[in-house]
């Protein structure tokens, strides 16, 4: 208990916990779950965008998208490394993903149907991700916080690119405007769900806040996102698909409609519209290419043996 008290005191003083420091088992477990979930999201998140790299409408857009998925692979790598400092191997994390035990962001279980979805993902999904991640730059676990600094910088670049791409569509032909509106219609609610269940259904929030693994509650972040994003949509001339959306002068923010939590929990359970596709793609990539990883290991072993001889 002394250890716990000392730990909690350090965290309360906004000190960083480092890999070799003592930490409560629950802290370690929660962090591994959270960081690996974040890493998986980066990797699975490459799929909806990869779906449009081959069909990007200009060389510039193709290059931007390639650079973006490259960044995402990089984020996945930092985050897996950060999680590994807590004593869980990357293989273990990947197996947990493939078995369905580990989760990834619900948002990537929705399909990218038109090019506007790529713009919408940059604008809304990266926007929501940043909202979640900015506070994590001050999270209590050192390697995670440092990874987040780099991730956030790149994410906010992606978000601006996404908004810019959306602007072009919203100012484009009638067909492009329609695409843009349709994308907003489909991505709006899933984006709001990205912040997780409402605070009163999020039992670990209090502890995670105390441990500085979380620094703002789900509902606080969601409100912030709505308040920032609604004016952006208005600026684009697009309609947010929520009849209950209204400015609330008193709270200085928007009131918005009820989220379909049944859908949210179904998607968390792995029943999202393209969840089967996402898991199949990741499993196939892993299993069908196992021979490559085995060959690399075998080659490495041969080289080591030759060097030792």
């Amino acid at each position, binding site marked *: 208990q002394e250890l716990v008290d000392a730990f909690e005191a350090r965290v309360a003083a906004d000190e960083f916990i480092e890999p070799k420091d003592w930490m409560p088992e629950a802290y370690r477990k929660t962090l591994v779950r959270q960081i690996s979930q974040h890493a998986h999201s980066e*990797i699975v998140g*490459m*799929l909806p*965008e*990869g779906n449009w*790299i*081959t*069909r*990007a*409408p*200009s*060389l*510039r*857009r*193709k*290059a931007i998208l*390639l*650079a973006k*998925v*490259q960044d995402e*692979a*990089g984020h*996945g*790598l930092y985050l*897996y490394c950060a999680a590994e400092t807590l004593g869980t191997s990357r293989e273990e994390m990947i197996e947990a993903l493939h078995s369905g035990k580990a989760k990834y962001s619900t948002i990537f279980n929705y399909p990218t149907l038109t*090019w506007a979805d790529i713009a919408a993902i940059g604008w809304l999904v990266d926007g929501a991700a940043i909202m979640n991640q900015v506070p994590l730059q001050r999270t209590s676990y050192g390697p995670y916080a440092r990874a987040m600094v780099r991730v956030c910088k790149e994410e906010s670049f992606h978000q601006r690119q996404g908004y810019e*791409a959306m602007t*072009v*569509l919203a100012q*484009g*032909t009638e*067909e*492009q405007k329609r695409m843009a509106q349709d994308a907003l219609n489909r991505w709006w609610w899933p984006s709001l769900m990205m912040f997780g269940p409402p605070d009163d259904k999020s039992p670990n929030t209090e502890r995670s806040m105390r441990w500085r693994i979380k620094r703002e509650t789900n509902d606080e972040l969601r409100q912030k996102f709505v308040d920032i994003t609604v004016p952006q949509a208005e600026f684009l001339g697009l309609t947010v698909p929520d009849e209950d959306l209204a400015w609330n002068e008193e709270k200085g923010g928007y009131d918005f409609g009820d989220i379909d939590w049944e859908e949210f929990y179904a998607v968390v359970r792995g029943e999202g519209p393209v969840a089967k596709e996402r898991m199949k*793609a*990741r499993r*196939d*990539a892993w299993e*069908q*290419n*196992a*021979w*490559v*990883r*085995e*060959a*690399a290991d*075998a*080659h490495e072993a*041969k080289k080591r043996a030759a060097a030792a001889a």
Partner: protein
Amino acid sequence: DAETIAYYLMLGDDALILGQRLSEWCGHAPSVEVDLSLANMGLDLIGQATNYLNGAAGAMDGDKDADALAFKRDVLDFRNCLMVEQPNGDFAQTMARQFLFSTWQHMLLQRLTQSKDGHLAAIAAKSVKEVAYHRELATDWVVRLGDGTEESTRRMTEGLDWNWRFIPELFDVDETLQKVINQGIAVDPREFEDEYRSALAEALAQAKLAVPDDQRPILGGRKGHHSEHLGHLLAVMQYLPRTYPDAEW
């Protein structure tokens, strides 16, 4: 002139089509690290393609740009070599193709930096380091898979076998190309064919693979006579600009 434009197109189409092929891997690679390096190579190649195609478009009549050339030409007008349009196959086949092509492209660009066409020389100078890295990365994988497990050796052997017959096209010089070679604009690839063959032999020796027998050369890409694969690639790549011809993105 027409021959210089054709040369820009040939270089640009090689980069574009190979970049497109590499981007098909996105999210499906053997590891995150490999996903990252495939996207990185794809990005380099798309950047190079943009430069060459803008060069070609600038020299053409009308107000074409690189996008018009990439997205509004049909198969008979593409000038890429047949190797770059070959399907990815498995990872060994992709790396075999990359090894055979990047080695060639690297030797070409090293010389192209001396082109009398200053614009071309500048693109080459900018790209040569990128391609040196592609070559190194692909060579490493050829060695690793060639001298890895039994399965990886078999797969790499098959991957090389699939792409081997497209090597002669890389060194084929037709009238159009000869003209720009004579002008000091283009590189004569025959100058470095021996060096190329030696580099291949050396890497394959390291990979403990036999040098495949020469196969009957398959030519045609440089005059628009492609394999059946390119049409499918274009159908995907050009979908949006074809479907919304008036839109900007």
